[in-house]
């Protein structure tokens, strides 16, 4: 049979713990679950191939949020992340990460992943954040995925590559029961019964449209089309603070970070067209992005990463990391344009919008063990609500969720689900393959994402959002009735288009619900310009209730690390004061 034909067969398997998404959090979750109960069955399901999937496909330039004894304490980190998120955090989850992540770094070190060390052999941590010191460079960060993959092979996990999960199965008692997946190369269905499921499907990275004209030229790994968010939603889980969009400062035209995290510790900084600093701190936060946006709008734009004042040897060292590790096509990009960091500044711009807790705070709601609001369903990494999680958060929280999910699975039996759910899902998935004629998935996707750019990109205007909702409904109708897929590859794209429109609807709904501005640019509403702590010092939780998209508030739990009044707005003071 040739690749990409549609067969539509079906098989069924069962396991104790099912991990969906084999990028960063997923492999760690699967490993830890398996190590906890070695004779239990753990399946790791991946849309691409675990060897090279996810944000860390080629490697990573560093740990952006390492809490390392001698440099920082879990209390300091929890405080910084609380302030950076305008106070809206579940501190228990942030603290749990902060106190657990050092042991994960040691473990990654023992796998052969290399971190920067000083002459004494100690980790050489750098300051990039506004207050504390948390960035640990990985000049040989290209080792990360390979080292992880070696551990997976050793642990004898069951890995299913090229299976795209499409929906979760929930039991009659409300517990998780498993998932349905479809093979991306032959459209074979796989029903996986599981006692617990961990979602590790990354950010919703294909929500906004990059201005380059390439739909897959996104900041996030473009395989992360928001399927995890859509699946959690349809399974009834709560999704937290989706209005806190991800928006990142990138290189203009190129879909990679300019990377002040790498270059900053060497003396590089973000500058305006005068070559002058305008922000105090290059750490990515909504408040920083707002100043970035303001500078772009003013006569002082564009914004640049400035390195040309540094010594040539220093620049060579920075180039070595930036051109080889995480986004290795970056070197080619600069070479094409003859951009020499020694001579000129690197032009930057603002990325498309997305959902991501790894970089901001929009994710499936989880507690400090990675538990969602659906019993037996977990989430970790970019798609789970622990804010500013980054790569080490994916590893650490994946690990915590893996262990807890296995404990849960050890105590329960499979939940019973309705077999009609499988038949209904098979019909939904295959519908675009049954039509002779219609609209290809790439056009459904393009239209959705173009509307996202036109109407949802902050600053958020109520009227524009309401128009967006109407347009999305029209596209959804086209999708449900006219989308076509002629082979299994197009079928995968059509399923992604469906996740993307779900995410677009959620982005609009969540943003309209919170009638205030918060998190700098991430949730800047023109009709509600001010932060309103009186009414909105809370999480928002979006979920599907009786088939309808619903938002509600959820109180912020009492802090375990108190924040003094004069510390609360430290991240609001990003702009450098011009001395007269």
């Amino acid at each position, binding site marked *: 049979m*040739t*690749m*990409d034909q549609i067969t539509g067969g079906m098989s069924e398997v069962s396991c104790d713990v099912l991990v969906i998404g084999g990028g960063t959090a997923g492999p760690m979750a699967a490993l830890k679950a398996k190590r906890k109960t070695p004779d239990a069955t753990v399946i790791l399901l991946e849309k*691409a*191939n675990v*060897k*090279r*999937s*996810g944000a860390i*496909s*080629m490697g990573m330039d560093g740990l952006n949020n390492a809490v390392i004894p001698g440099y920082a304490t879990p209390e300091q980190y929890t405080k910084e992340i609380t302030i950076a998120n305008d106070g809206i955090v579940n501190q228990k989850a942030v603290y749990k990460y902060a106190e657990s992540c050092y042991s994960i770094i040691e473990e990654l070190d023992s796998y052969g992943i290399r971190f920067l060390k000083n002459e004494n052999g100690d980790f050489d941590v750098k300051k990039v954040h506004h207050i504390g010191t948390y960035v640990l460079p990985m000049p040989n960060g290209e080792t990360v995925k390979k080292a992880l993959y070696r551990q997976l092979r050793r642990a004898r996990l069951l890995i299913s590559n*090229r299976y795209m999960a499409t929906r979760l199965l929930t039991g009659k008692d409300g517990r998780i029961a498993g998932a349905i997946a479809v093979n*991306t*190369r032959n459209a074979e269905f796989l029903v996986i019964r599981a006692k617990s499921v961990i979602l590790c499907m990354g950010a919703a990275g294909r929500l906004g449209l990059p201005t*380059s*004209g*390439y*739909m*897959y*030229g*996104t900041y996030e*790994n*473009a*395989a992360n089309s928001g399927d995890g968010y859509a699946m959690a939603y349809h399974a009834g889980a709560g999704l937290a603070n989706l209005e806190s969009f991800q928006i990142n400062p990138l290189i203009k*035209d*190129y*879909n990679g970070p300019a990377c002040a995290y790498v270059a900053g510790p060497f003396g590089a900084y973000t500058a305006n067209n005068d070559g002058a600093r305008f922000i105090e701190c290059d750490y990515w936060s909504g408040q920083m992005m707002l100043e970035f946006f303001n500078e772009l709008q003013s006569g002082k734009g564009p914004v640049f990463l400035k390195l040309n004042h540094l010594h040539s040897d220093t620049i060579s060292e920075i180039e070595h990391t930036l051109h080889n590790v995480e*986004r*290795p*096509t970056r070197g*080619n*990009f600069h070479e*094409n*344009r003859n951009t020499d960091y020694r001579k000129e500044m690197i032009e930057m711009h603002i990325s498309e919008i997305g959902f991501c807790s790894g970089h901001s705070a929009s994710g499936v709601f989880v507690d400090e063990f990675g538990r969602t609001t659906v019993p037996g369903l977990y989430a970790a990494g970019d798609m789970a609500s622990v804010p500013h999680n980054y790569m080490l958060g994916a590893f650490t929280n994946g690990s915590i969720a893996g262990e807890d999910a296995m404990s849960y699975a050890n105590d329960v039996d499979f939940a019973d689900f309705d077999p009609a759910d499988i038949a209904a899902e098979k019909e939904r998935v295959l519908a675009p393959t049954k039509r002779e*004629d*219609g*609209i*290809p998935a790439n056009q459904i996707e393009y239209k959705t994402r173009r509307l996202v750019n036109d109407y949802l990109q902050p600053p958020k205007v109520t009227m524009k959002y309401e128009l967006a909702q109407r347009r999305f409904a029209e596209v959804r109708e086209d999708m449900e009735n006219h989308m076509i897929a002629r082979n299994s*590859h197009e079928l*995968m*794209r059509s399923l992604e288009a469906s996740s993307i429109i779900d995410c677009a609807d959620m982005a609009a709904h969540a943003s309209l619900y919170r009638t205030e501005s918060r998190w700098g640019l991430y949730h800047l509403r023109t009709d509600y310009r001010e932060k309103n702590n009186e009414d909105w010092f809370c999480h928002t939780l979006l979920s599907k209730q009786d088939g309808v998209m619903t938002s509600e508030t959820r109180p912020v739990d009492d802090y375990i690390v108190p924040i003094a009044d004069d510390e609360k707005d430290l991240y609001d003071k990003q702009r450098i004061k011009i001395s007269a």
Partner: protein
Amino acid sequence: MPLASQETTVPVVVDEAKCIAEKGCTVCVEVCPLDVLRISDMSKKAYMAYDECWYCMPCEADCPTGAVTVNIPYLLK
């Protein structure tokens, strides 16, 4: 509705003289996160079948014979 396709230059090119797909190699096809590479039925060599690239480079890095080159596509360049 009849469909038409729009011409585009693809970023990933395979040096057919170096590609050993006819001997059973499928490394680049296997590693690509976006699943856009295929082995051609006609030439028996790897090629970019779908213009849906993230410019990430596993295909180039993992090819055992150095046959793959990832270029920055025209609209980004």
